[in-house]
């Protein structure tokens, strides 16, 4: 019979099918003890250049001097001690020699000095340079005003001692020294291989992991650094897959299919389902971000010049509705721009009033019932739920104030370009946000408002003076008082109306222990986690 001839083949085929289908299914990891996650392609693996979400990847590889935890306490890492001299300007950092590069070579103060001076090198065009402006002559060197790099106040005074001098007494500099951006780099490797020093075959790292392989836009693999001077990581291997497009959706789907151990965000429309899911709900880990989402006005134009208009608009906003729609109530509505966790903030400064007050103010400004109010545009990015917020605001103002808005949604890069162009170009309203770079009032009051990074064209002499005074004030309590006063002015003037403080939502598999939200940037350190 024909079948006899083919029996062997049939049995063979079945065997292949059965063994093959055993491989189909969940748990795709090559190594069961590897930590799997999905990340966006890091713009820079070079810690001297990374200021965006790349830092979350780099934080596994490179370690700074110290770290500031959620309570504001400084924990030393690569440094044995950080002291400031009586002039409040000279910082002496003693490095801990037990920390070595991932090839076993010692990390000397020369590496640190080289790295930080490289950050300031105008040819590198690094965005990290902005964090070292307090250092003596750093800004001048970075802007090209002086060319002698030895004038910059960073010097290796010994094999393991580093001295940093600030141009003015700056007590907040201790926090700057703990920023994750300020790590050392291996001088010898960088000098030899230049831009290619971050390739897996060249790179050396001082953190708990070292880079084993990197395929751009595809994957990043790390393994434990055998020469790491701190606590050896319990997880030996990290496998990161790169996603483009919707990162949160890709992560959630992979998480639900058991293909990753960790997800750093949940897509807005899935938040409710995840929270109510008996299994996923327990694995959800929220963390209030030190950030605020707001809308702001172009204060150089009418009708936004008129404070009554701004107040009316602010009072007509229903923040609860926005938070419900955008984050299923996980975010926190807020009336003040500077988050509570930043010293100097004060929720009591918020604008007070009802919708009736709003209507009255609009009438006082010359637009009773919204009559005669020009049609205006709300500009938003296509990401982060901003189109939803814009639509909510549009309807709120239409109903309560009788004013008409149109919405303009731009894709992310076009949106950023548009925001930058607003320095000289007019606009009406825009949605924007700010995430703290570090937990200090100077980041919000100084960088954001005085520096007008978001181009609201707000300028108040008293406010600027207060911020300047506050930045130079060494006494902690007095400093907070000064910033409190500044906050009052900020909220009174309402150049931006705060909406909510976003909350980061993580999903962590139950067998992963020790993965914490750390600090203002919501870092995670896989080297401190373990599988159970």
């Amino acid at each position, binding site marked *: 019979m024909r079948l006899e001839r083919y029996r062997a083949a049939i049995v063979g085929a079945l065997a292949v099918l059965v063994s093959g289908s055993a491989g189909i299914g969940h748990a795709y990891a090559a190594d069961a003890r590897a930590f799997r996650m999905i990340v966006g392609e890091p713009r820079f693996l070079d810690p001297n250049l990374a200021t965006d979400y790349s830092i979350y990847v780099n934080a596994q590889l490179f370690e700074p001097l110290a770290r500031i935890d959620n309570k504001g306490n400084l924990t030393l890492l690569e440094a044995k001690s950080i002291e400031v001299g009586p002039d409040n300007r000279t910082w002496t950092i003693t490095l801990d020699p037990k920390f070595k590069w991932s090839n076993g070579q010692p990390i000397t103060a020369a590496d640190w000095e080289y790295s930080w001076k490289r950050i300031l090198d105008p040819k590198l065009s690094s965005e990290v340079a902005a964090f070292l402006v307090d250092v003596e002559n750093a800004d001048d060197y970075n802007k090209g005003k002086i060319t002698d790099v030895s004038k910059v106040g960073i010097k290796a005074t010994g094999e393991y001692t580093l001295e940093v001098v600030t141009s003015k007494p700056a007590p907040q500099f201790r926090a700057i020294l703990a920023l994750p951006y300020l790590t050392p780099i291996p001088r010898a490797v960088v000098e030899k291989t230049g831009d290619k020093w971050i390739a897996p075959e060249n790179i050396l790292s001082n953190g708990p992991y070292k880079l084993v392989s990197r395929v751009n836009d595809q994957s990043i693999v790390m393994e434990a650094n055998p020469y790491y001077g701190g606590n050896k990581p319990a997880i030996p291997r990290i496998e990161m897959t790169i996603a483009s497009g*919707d990162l949160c*959706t890709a992560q959630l*789907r992979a998480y639900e299919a058991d293909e990753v151990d960790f997800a750093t965000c949940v*897509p*807005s*429309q*899935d938040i*409710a*389902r995840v929270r109510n899911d008996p299994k996923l709900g327990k694995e959800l880990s929220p963390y209030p971000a030190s950030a605020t989402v707001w809308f702001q006005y172009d204060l150089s134009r009418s009708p936004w010049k008129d404070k009554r208009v701004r107040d009316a608009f602010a009072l007509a906003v229903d923040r609860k*509705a926005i938070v*419900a*729609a955008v984050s299923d109530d996980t975010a926190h509505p807020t009336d003040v721009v500077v988050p509570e966790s930043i010293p100097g903030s004060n929720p009591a400064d918020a604008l007070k009033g009802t919708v009736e007050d709003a209507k009255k103010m609009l009438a006082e400004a010359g637009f009773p019932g919204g009559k005669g109010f020009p049609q205006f*545009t709300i*500009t938003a990015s*296509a*990401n982060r739920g901003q*189109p*939803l917020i*814009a*639509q*909510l605001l*549009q*309807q709120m103002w239409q109903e309560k104030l009788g004013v008409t808005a*149109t*919405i*303009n*949604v*731009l*894709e*992310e890069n*076009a949106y950023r*370009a*548009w925001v930058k162009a607003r320095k000289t170009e*007019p*606009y009406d309203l825009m949605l924007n946000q700010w995430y703290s770079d570090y937990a200090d009032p100077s980041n919000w009051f100084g960088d954001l408002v005085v520096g007008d990074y978001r181009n609201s064209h707000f300028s108040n002499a008293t406010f600027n003076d207060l911020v300047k005074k506050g930045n130079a004030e060494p006494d902690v309590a007095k400093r907070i008082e000064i910033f409190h006063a500044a906050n009052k002015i900020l909220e009174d003037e309402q150049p931006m109306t705060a909406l909510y403080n976003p909350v980061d939502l993580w999903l962590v598999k139950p067998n992963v222990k020790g993965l914490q939200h750390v600090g203002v940037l919501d870092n995670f350190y896989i080297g401190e986690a373990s599988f159970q």
Partner: protein
Amino acid sequence: MSAPAVETTSVTPAANPGRGTALLRLVRRNPALVASLALLAIVVAAAILSPLLPYDAYRQDILHRNARPSLQHWFGTDELGRDMTARLAVGARVSLIVALTSSLIAVAIGVVIGMVAGYLGGLSDSTIMRFVDSMYAFPETLFAILIASLVKGQLAGQSTGLLAPLAEAYRLSGGLLGVLLTLGFTCWLTTSRLVRSQVLSLKNAEYVLASRLAGASHTFIIRTHLLPNSLPVILVAVTFVVPNAILLEAGLSFIGVGVDPPTPSWGTMIAGGVQSIQSYPHLLIAPAVAIGATLLALNVVGDALRDLFDPALRASRRG
């Protein structure tokens, strides 16, 4: 995706009476065609009658957002609590307007270019067709994305300068203008090729030559002889362009360069629905079925139209 200009047909009726009888026969033989026409009629009716629906397509109701279909809301509510039925109906209107207008623009451009190239012939023809070839070498979706980003970037929020009136029009149209221009500039290729080959074959027909000898101007010939006889081809082109425009609009919305909110269009609804696929599948199913059914119907009608006009096409190709 630019469909190729290859015309093939199903069997045409043996007898050869006038067009009307052929049409009737086609309908009787083809129930799918009848169903498709009925569906399209429903879609158009929904688009026109949308103001009569109980709920407003723009009315937000956060407390009842993402609601499943119920007696109150036949297709449920979306992420801001707006009635999906109303949004589907208004979306039908927007999508139809976008599809038809952009097709009009695309066909107009294609007709002009095809007509000019075919009629002038020689070097002008070669140059123009070279340009058309290079446009063919440009992948369509990617060209659309480039143009959309460009249009949005230049027109959105611009209140000064040369582009100001266009920017104003953009704002008044709620972002539709951007999508219209994008689709119009992307989809004209097939039309131009079809029209050109038609014109090439018609150009040397006897009645055209006679007209020329009698002293008719070029415009007269184009207007009276070439255009009307190109109508079948133009209609065939339209049957390719319209479904393509609808799909392309959905693609642009997914990238984020589609119609501005809060205007509902099937493209934006589908792009939004994909984000809720696991949590609120009804947000995807409703517009997906709407688009799918409409496109299916358009394709069936397009096939039928192409069958109908095929004798005309084949005759012209032989000539």
